[in-house]
């Protein structure tokens, strides 16, 4: 199946067509904050978030790994009343899902999560939502804002993890490149919105990709980063940032690759019904490594601050061959203490 062309002004039509067949999640504003949310029509979608280079506050992980997620519901006498699959299907109204307007770095982030949740015991809760989702990515041709360092983390050109990639080849035209059966189906199912690609379009596409290559700059080298971070275990640098950090966990929540969760029990007041929930957890919280008998494997703030870096830049690369960071810069944007992950890493590497 070949790539097709869609005109910029037809994007709302595409969204509207998709809403008939899918649950569509797209960038919107929620109290002025760019947010991925469920939309019923194209009028709710804020296209300027996509094309004026803003990242939704929470990455698409909120769809597959929501901040709070009911795993099953039960009645204390009758037993399980709603299974995980039933709940997950109800959440998406028994529809397949389209996430529209995912940036390349977030595609890479979803890829990280997918690998982790598919590995070992494949996680039904995550994968049931993930596998029914079609990801329509909108390509970035330049750094989207000052906190973006996706080029450094090699995340702005994902080879997989998206189903369709839309790249602007002119002010009025985008090329739609399918990358999976789900993606091909989108192009096939809405033929009136997609036109054949001309030779001129192909050339414009190559120009756009060349422009992308030229625009993106590497801020520092991640080659050897794992060893740098590992060797800096006793470094004073951790202390310096630990003193600034508020340990609020914001960076872990907005992170596209932070996946740690805890499990909670919610019980009704009459103690008859309940549900088990997954909830985002943060390694910055003191109880994260606490075990029975009050033994805490990471008792100090410094240990907890450092651990996040060890996990993202040593443990994950060694285990999965990717960093737990896609350079989206959200942790920088939303840090109330103004800690910049790039500063930490640059100091560790010794280039700052």
């Amino acid at each position, binding site marked *: 199946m070949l790539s097709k062309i869609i005109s910029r002004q037809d994007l709302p039509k595409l969204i509207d067509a998709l809403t008939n067949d899918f649950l569509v999640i797209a960038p919107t504003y929620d109290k002025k904050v760019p947010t991925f949310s469920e939309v019923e029509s194209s009028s709710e979608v804020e296209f300027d978030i996509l094309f004026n280079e803003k990242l939704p506050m929470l990455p698409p992980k909120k769809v597959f790994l929501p901040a709070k997620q009911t795993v099953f519901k039960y009645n204390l006498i009758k037993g399980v009343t709603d299974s995980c699959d039933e709940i997950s299907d109800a959440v998406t109204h028994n529809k397949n899902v389209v996430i529209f307007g995912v940036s390349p770095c977030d595609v890479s982030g979803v890829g990280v999560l997918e690998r982790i949740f598919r*590995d*070992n015991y494949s996680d*039904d809760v*995550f994968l049931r939502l993930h596998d029914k989702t079609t990801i329509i990515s909108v390509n970035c041709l330049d750094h989207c804002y000052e906190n973006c360092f996706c080029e450094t983390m090699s995340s702005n050109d994902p080879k997989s993890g998206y189903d369709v990639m839309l790249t602007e080849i002119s002010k009025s035209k985008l090329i739609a490149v399918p990358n999976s059966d789900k993606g091909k189906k989108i192009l096939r199912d809405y033929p009136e919105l997609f036109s054949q690609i001309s030779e001129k379009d192909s050339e414009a596409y190559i120009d756009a990709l060349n422009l992308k290559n030229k625009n993106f700059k590497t801020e520092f080298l991640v080659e050897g980063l794992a060893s740098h971070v590992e060797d800096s275990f006793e470094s004073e640098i951790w202390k310096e940032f630990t003193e600034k950090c508020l340990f609020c966990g914001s960076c872990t929540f907005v992170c596209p690759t932070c996946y740690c969760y805890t*499990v909670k029990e919610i019980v009704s007041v009459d103690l008859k019904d309940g549900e088990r929930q997954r909830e985002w957890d943060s390694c910055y919280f003191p109880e*994260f490594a*606490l075990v*029975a008998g009050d033994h805490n494997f990471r008792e100090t703030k410094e240990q907890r601050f450092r651990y996040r870096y060890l996990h993202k830049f040593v443990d994950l690369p060694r285990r999965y061959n990717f960093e737990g960071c896609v350079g989206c810069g959200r942790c920088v944007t939303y840090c109330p203490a103004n800690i910049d992950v790039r500063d930490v890493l640059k100091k560790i590497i010794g280039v700052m």
Partner: protein
Amino acid sequence: MTASKDKEEISTYKTQPAEILAIRDLTDDTRYFKLRCKDITMNKDFQYRPGQFVIFSLPGVGEATFSLSSTPTRRDFIEFGIRKVGSFTEALFKLKKGDTIDIRGPYGDGFEMEDLRGRDLIIVSGGLGAVPLRSVLLYIEDRREEYNKVFFLNGARSPKDMLYKRDFIAMNQRQIIDTHLAVDEDDTGEWPYNVGFVTQLIPKLGELIDSENTTAIICGPPIMYKFVIQELLKLNIPKDQILMTLERRMKCGQGHCGHCAVGGRYTCLEGPVFTYYDVQHIKELI
């Protein structure tokens, strides 16, 4: 929920009901639980190795992780030794014989008992470490001819704090395993066995074992590992023949929730049993 089936087939939170066959007090705050899967066919399928663990689920309370304390050589029931330390165990201690607990697992990488055949074994336990090591000990008793010399050193704070005291005294009398029961302090004045730290018993084993052919298995409170490992290294036991089982906070048992990660390893997948050789350089291990 069986190890015999491919683990990919296990549904993430799928549990199976198990009936409590027996409960008894081990110490003031620790109880023995004997369970049997209600589905008899499941029961036969429930294959595990010493060192593995199971996650209990109590609707209305939550989930918690417990080491298996029984041996897979004795079928049709599984046993646990559980200390009351939090809200889950408090609820668990209210259950009675005949009640049901939902369980999932077994999880983790346990001891490869087959690989230890023909070796001398030193098993060192401290406090709650007796729970997973009881599984190893009973396994060895049932297949004693497969192993060479076997020593069991068990430490407890005082006689009343010793887990499985009845079982271990009986084990001492059977002498199938050379058992040494130590208490840090004998507040009764009547303790007929060793008094002092369990580490003090290790040097005496030097002349009795063939170091190169010895495997040590240890589990105990965090403070114990350092001293026990020092003593074992003095006996020239190879680092990759010191097996230790580690504790971590765990929520899923499946390598996803992130809590048990240490030095790039998931305690719930690659552990809880590690060799000292593999983890000697890991920071924040204990």
